[in-house]
């Protein structure tokens, strides 16, 4: 695996391999010394063109636990804000000897450009690009679901997929890279995905995706669901006629207290509630839902470090790097 750009082209074998490796990494986090020497002497650059403290520190923690040298490059206040191009930035990092570039960018496809051009030879990890993909988020979500799903079945999580698990992803699918990455990865892992959203926040073409689409949250819950993933509603959507008001949004599409109670009423005692963060409490998710025992929000954050360690390890540790022909994503 040379790059991690999307989950759309990620094979089942590679997806399970990343999740299994993340399990091993998670075990490191439980030790007294939370550090492996695996990437000693390797340089990981966090190249962030968009603010995201959570994702950046998660990658930073992951790289440091693997003993890599970490350079944080935030676009704001840097040469990038003075008009330096992505190409020049990439070539600069290449000249400094970056082994991996973790890139967060507001433009969909920016990580693909880095990987496809000869601007830089480093491994590229997509840490979220525009409204396209956020593969490590989907992997940490899948990791969280897999632990839950295999625990219910009394099976070890290592090697397992998500066959038969019913997952609802609810909210602003149109603008969500998290939703896209999850749809592809959950499809690959065998889960059954239902997108729940107002029609205005679903992309034209969603009918071609490997999932069901519903406009009704309550019906989706009644049909039975094992995980409900709530997507963040971005502030800039609120005055653009995607929905009439935040209150109407909450009532129809949010995970409120009534729906939390509905899970109990419907006998869905093992259903988990997920959120990629940061949450808008009271909008897409109620405080009670966010803080309930069903909520995996903090587990997701914790698992994020393990999954990102796994991704960095598999991309950068030479002896496990597989031939690019079999693992490289299609561009």
């Amino acid at each position, binding site marked *: 695996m040379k790059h991690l750009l999307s989950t759309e082209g990620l094979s089942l074998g590679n997806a399970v391999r990343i999740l299994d490796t993340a399990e091993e990494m998670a075990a490191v986090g439980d030790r007294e010394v939370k550090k492996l020497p695996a990437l000693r002497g390797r340089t990981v650059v966090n190249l962030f063109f968009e603010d995201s403290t959570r994702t950046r520190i998660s990658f930073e923690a992951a790289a440091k636990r693997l003993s890599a040298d970490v350079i944080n490059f935030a676009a704001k206040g840097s040469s990038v804000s003075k008009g330096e191009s992505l190409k020049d930035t990439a070539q600069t990092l290449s000249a400094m000897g970056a082994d991996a570039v973790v890139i967060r960018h507001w433009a969909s496809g920016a990580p693909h450009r880095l990987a496809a051009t000869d601007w830089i030879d480093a491994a590229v990890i997509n840490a979220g690009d525009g*409204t396209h993909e956020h593969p490590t988020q989907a992997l940490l979500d899948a990791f969280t679901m897999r632990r839950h799903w295999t625990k219910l079945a009394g099976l070890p999580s290592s090697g397992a997929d998500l066959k038969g698990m019913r997952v609802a992803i609810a909210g602003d699918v149109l603008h969500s890279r998290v939703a896209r990455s999850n749809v592809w990865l959950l499809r690959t892992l065998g889960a059954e995905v239902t997108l729940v959203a107002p029609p205005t926040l679903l992309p034209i*073409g969603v009918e071609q995706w490997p999932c069901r689409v519903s406009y009704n949250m309550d019906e989706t819950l009644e049909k039975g669901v094992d995980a409900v993933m709530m997507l963040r509603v971005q502030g800039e959507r609120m005055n653009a006629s995607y929905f009439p008001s935040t209150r109407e949004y909450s009532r129809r599409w949010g995970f409120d207290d009534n729906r939390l109670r509905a899970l109990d009423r419907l006998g869905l005692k093992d259903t988990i509630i997920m959120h990629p963060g940061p949450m808008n409490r009271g909008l897409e998710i109620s405080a009670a839902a966010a803080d309930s025992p069903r909520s995996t929000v903090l587990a997701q954050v914790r698992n994020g470090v393990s999954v990102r360690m796994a991704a960095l390890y598999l991309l950068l540790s030479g002896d496990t790097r597989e031939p690019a022909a079999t693992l490289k994503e299609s561009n």
Partner: protein
Amino acid sequence: MAEQSADNGTNTNATTGSTGTYLIRGAAILGAGTEDLLIRDGVIAARGAAANSAAGDATVIDADGLIALPGMVDVHTHLREPGREDAETVETGTRAAALGGFTAVHAMANSTPVADTAGVVEQVHSLGRAAGWVDVRPVGAVTVGLAGEQLAELGAMADSRAQVRMFSDDGICVHDPVLMRRALEYVKAFDGVVAQHAQEPRLTAGAQMNEGNVSAVLGLTGWPAVAEESIIARDVLLTQHVGSRLHVCHVSTAGSVEIIRWAKARGINVTAEVTPHHLLLTDELVRSYDPVYKVNPPLRTDADVQALRAALADGTIDVVGTDHAPHPSEHKECEWAQAAMGMTGLETALSVVQHAMIETGLMTWADFARATSVAPAAIGRLTDQGRPLEEGEPANIILVDPSARWTVDPSAMATMGRNSPFRGMELPGKVVATFFKGHPTVLDGKLNTPYRHPADAATAPAGGY
């Protein structure tokens, strides 16, 4: 092809205005029967057996296996000058045009300053004459500064030395229905035409690519077909209402074709254009996120491509227009969303149309001449272009080798733009010679020398380019 005479006239025309005498031997006229053509004093002096007997000491051009066509006329070219000489100049763009088989191009108005006054269109026209590779027909802006608020001085541009007949805010849609109505009405005074870039602005805010299955996956903001179709529907109705003439630039969707077909059936005076890239490429290419495929209107689906091909074949779409849009490399070597929209096209148009339309059996070479020369000349009201290859007609002629095969290499092109979406593709057909007003601007597939307008001869710099 062989030069059989030492004196082909090209060395002297720069000072005398003479264009020499050429005998084109055995060219398939519009792809049909082979005949000889004698070119003298800027016109076709004779055709057939008479050409041979009247040839005298003409330079003989062996056209065995070549097709003779009227010089192509582009209704849609961005020459970038004045203002963006780092992207293209009139000189480089018209060299590319001559190499691509064109003898006339319409230079779009979105220069800096905008071509919205008689002064700017005359400047572009003069630059074109000085370059001498093709006729440069400036397109005037519809509105001042392309701002869509106030009509530019359309009459002054029409009356200028540039004799503008086509007006367009290309790149920006004249979206205000009242302004569009007024423009359509006003150009009737001088037999003008409004060439509309059909794009509803509110439906395409921030649009990056065709809205559909691919944009859904890529997370790029969609440019829906309805944003084009709704403007075309409105404009054909306005055109009917005021009894004017409308040209629709770069039609890109199957739905647009249906609306134009309907309008023509109602007798509305509308013409339409399709680009070579929309006849061949689809939005699947955007999966690469390579901005060389970023263009406006965007690449659409295969169903759209097939509908556009059928419409060009049956005449619903009248002309091929390149929308040649060169950009400096830094405007394409970046993130998709940051990249400029546009593709080069002058030097690949003939080959792409041959590939998409002729080799598929949808069109003959005579149809090709209609769509690339006769019809575009009529839209632009060019009286000496798009003419039959008959005795006494202006000698704007190209010779094409339809059996040639070549691999597109943008770095080898005459245009300054390297943004060809056909990079690396093998395409059929090669322009072997271009005669502009009887003078060979291209010979053996290479640039020869520019034509010197007689009135300019005394002041033109000698020594070609």
